[in-house]
């Protein structure tokens, strides 16, 4: 094979790849024959053992109850569903009369729907619904009596706060609806169901306030979700790349939260949330960069304290990405810029170490990331041991062995702790930290400055849903700044509702968009 052919072969998709397609049986309609419907249903499930079908006669009419084992609350099923059906007495029973009774006179389940295709039927069964098929009727009644095991509402692990609710989202979709509905008791709060993944058919829900959200934003999100081609969706992170747009950036214009109160606050500002069955993490679209530094506690604390904490977070962010790089750059290229006493200390500690500052920093951060990742993935009891060993290796043994200088340990410690002040930025922060150490070691302060400028321009280019991620600082929306550099009191904040489409530079022109118009 020539070089040209080899290059072309590299660009071709692999032979094993098949674009995701939908099951052809999904669009097939149910028939009037119960037997034929059951044969089709069994064929769809194949040899799967979790399909349960009970063929019964209700008032003498042949019927079948189908469900997925382990997905239905058997206690409720037997008392609230099976018993009333078995005891049912109809005069001159016919399939139509039974259907009419089911439609108008029964209260077998809080959630009852009619389905006409095998695709719908299959999806409801997979979601824990009980299906009732009646001979002579070309549709199925489905009853929501879900009873699959799930975690109860608990305090969110990644977004804890001092004041406010201790409730976090759970993996099941419907309890999450109630968590939101309890907080916003408005008829304008809409849960719009979406099905994602051609194979997994995962349930999701777009959450928005219909009187506030920009229709253009909603249309764009629906469009991007419908264009998405993926087989299996197991976590909201699977969806993010399909919802984001160019340019390639380490910052995301989509936020993630596991707190219902946070999602409610965002939805009230005209954003759209996306809840997904099977994950307690909801997506927030669009998400501004400054929101990475906000927490629910900020709004419970007094304004002066909240403002101080906000500044502390900004400082921590800059410290965590720039401090190691600047330390390496100044120590390596511009030692004359350091105060004389600090310079002497640095010289004394670095005299005993064999590596240049940049290599020391890279080495120690590499070790730190290994320890962090191991601590995260290992069982909790072992994780603590790993942390202790890691702490000893980084903090004491490495300095005693003369591998790294003591000032570098302080820099690493400050940097590592600062990274957790804005946990949602951990991924970009880690990458940038390594990049700035490399740049600082190679090009000094000049390189760090230029790298930082490029990162800022990149952040300013992120515009995922027509709202600049760098807003309201750039472009400047003075009124929106009341909650960025300073957190004003609630008397000021409540004077006018902030809506994401009103921000300067926003393309979502429903209210206040005229600000940008010609």
């Amino acid at each position, binding site marked *: 094979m020539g070089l040209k052919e080899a290059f072309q072969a590299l660009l071709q998709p692999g032979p094993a790849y098949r674009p995701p397609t939908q099951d052809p049986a999904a669009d097939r309609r149910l028939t009037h024959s119960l037997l034929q419907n059951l044969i089709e249903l069994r064929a769809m499930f194949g040899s799967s053992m979790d399909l349960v079908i009970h063929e019964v006669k209700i008032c003498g009419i042949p019927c079948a109850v189908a469900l997925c084992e382990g997905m239905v609350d058997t206690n409720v099923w037997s008392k609230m569903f099976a018993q009333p059906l078995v005891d049912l007495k109809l005069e001159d029973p016919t399939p139509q009369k039974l259907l009419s009774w089911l439609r108008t006179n029964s209260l077998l389940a809080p959630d009852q729907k009619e389905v006409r295709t095998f695709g719908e039927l299959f999806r409801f069964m997979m979601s824990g619904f009980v299906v009732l098929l009646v001979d002579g009727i070309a549709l199925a009644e489905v009853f929501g009596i879900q009873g699959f095991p799930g975690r109860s509402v608990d305090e969110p692990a990644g977004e804890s706060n001092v004041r406010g609710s201790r409730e976090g989202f759970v993996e099941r979709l419907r309890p999450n609806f109630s968590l939101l509905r309890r907080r916003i008791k408005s008829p304008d709060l809409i849960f719009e169901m979406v099905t994602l993944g051609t194979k997994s058919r995962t349930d999701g829900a777009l959450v928005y306030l219909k009187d506030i959200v920009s229709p253009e934003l909603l249309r764009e999100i629906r469009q991007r979700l419908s264009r998405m081609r993926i087989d299996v969706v197991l976590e909201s992170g699977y969806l993010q790349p399909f919802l984001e747009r160019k*340019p390639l950036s380490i910052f995301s214009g989509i936020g993630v939260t596991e707190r219902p109160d946070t999602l409610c606050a965002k939805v009230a500002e005209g954003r759209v949330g996306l809840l997904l069955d099977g994950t307690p993490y909801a997506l927030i679209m669009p998400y501004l960069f400054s929101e990475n530094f906000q927490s629910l506690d900020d709004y419970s604390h007094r304004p002066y304290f909240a403002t101080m904490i906000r500044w502390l977070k900004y400082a921590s962010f800059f410290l965590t990405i720039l401090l190691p790089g600047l330390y390496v750059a100044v120590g390596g290229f511009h030692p004359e810029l350091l105060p004389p006493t600090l310079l002497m200390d640095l010289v004394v500690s670095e005299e005993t170490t064999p590596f240049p500052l940049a290599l020391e920093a890279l080495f120690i951060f590499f070790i730190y990331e290994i320890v962090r990742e191991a601590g995260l993935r290992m069982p909790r009891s072992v994780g603590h041991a790993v942390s202790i060993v890691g702490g000893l290796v980084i903090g004491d043994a490495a300095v005693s062995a003369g591998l790294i200088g003591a000032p570098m340990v302080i820099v690493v410690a400050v940097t590592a702790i600062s990274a957790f002040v804005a946990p949602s930025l951990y991924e970009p922060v880690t990458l940038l930290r390594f990049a700035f150490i490399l740049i600082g070691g190679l090009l000094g302060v000049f390189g760090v*400055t230029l790298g930082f*400028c490029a990162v*800022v321009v990149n952040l300013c280019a992120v*515009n995922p849903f027509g709202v600049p991620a*760098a807003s309201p600082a750039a472009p*400047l929306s003075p009124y929106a700044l009341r909650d960025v550099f300073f957190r004003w009191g609630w008397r000021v904040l409540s004077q006018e509702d902030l809506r994401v489409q009103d921000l300067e530079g926003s*393309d979502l022109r429903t209210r206040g968009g005229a600000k940008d118009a*010609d």
Partner: protein
Amino acid sequence: MRTDLRRISGAQLVTTLAVTRVFSLFTYVPRQGSVSGQVTLLSIPLSVAVCWLLLTPFLRMRKTCGPDLLVECGRLGKPFSAVAVLLFLGACLLQVAGSCSHFAFFMTSSVYQTASREIFIGVLLVTGGYAAALGLEAFSRAGSLLFAFALLVMGLMLAALLPEIRLSQLYSPLAEGVEPLVRSLARTTAQNVELILFVLLLSRCRPGHDKRYLAGLLGITALLYEIFTFLTLTVLGDYSRMRLFPLHTLATVAEASVLGRMDLLHILLWSAVGFLRVTLYLYGAATCLHRLAKRLSMGMAVAICAFLTGVMALAIPIGVWDVASPGTLAVLSVLVAGFPLAVLAKKRFSKEESAQ
């Protein structure tokens, strides 16, 4: 959702250009026969008036003909349009090359004495090219943030230098006659080379506030120049004429009690300002090139411009580039006043013709 070229706000354009203009202030190198600081102090406000006069035809053209100068030049015929675009392209390329060369000169002479200038030119062009490829919207947002940072650093420097001010160093600017004032006025006006970008990019802002934007740009830059010329004069005195980069010396002298020396901040700011300047002019050059070769994508146009300016920057001998040369003044006059005047004259001529 809109996908066409987005507009930027006038404030973003003004602040970005003001930061870019600061580069000339930082890179000021005293030359043989340079006029004294007192004369410069007087020539700065006068240059604002001259610049305003130079841009009057352009403002008139925006009001009566159309918002985009190059589009209006296109109405005067293809050859005229091509000449106009080529001249703007050349001016932008020259500014990028000159800025890179001068920045590398500063770095190799004052900060990294042992480094080679090719590294600085290369890195500056790569990062500037990347930012330019991301679009005007992105880097003008970043520019407004940088403007805030620049004001902060300059405010700190000002506060740190206040105790060092010696007013006894000041004397009458007209003590040496009018001739130095005229020379200084020409140089100070020529330093306003950002007006080329103002003319090129104003069509991307909301129309209707042109005078306000121009006043903002000229006002902010004049104020910054006045302050730093005054500080250089009253803190360093005649010693400033002996220094290669007086403002860097000023930053070294400035010492805030808690923060220590200011030269690190100065290097940071200067690098950032240099980056923004290169980005802006690269973008300006790329838009001109894109007009000439429509099939070329903006990213490719930026890459070609960056390559060309890299070669040009390396060809400029070390320390030779002068931002305020008489040639610059001539080019500035032709680009920001000459072409709009031609557009206005053509319009008037065709009006008279149609009336006859």
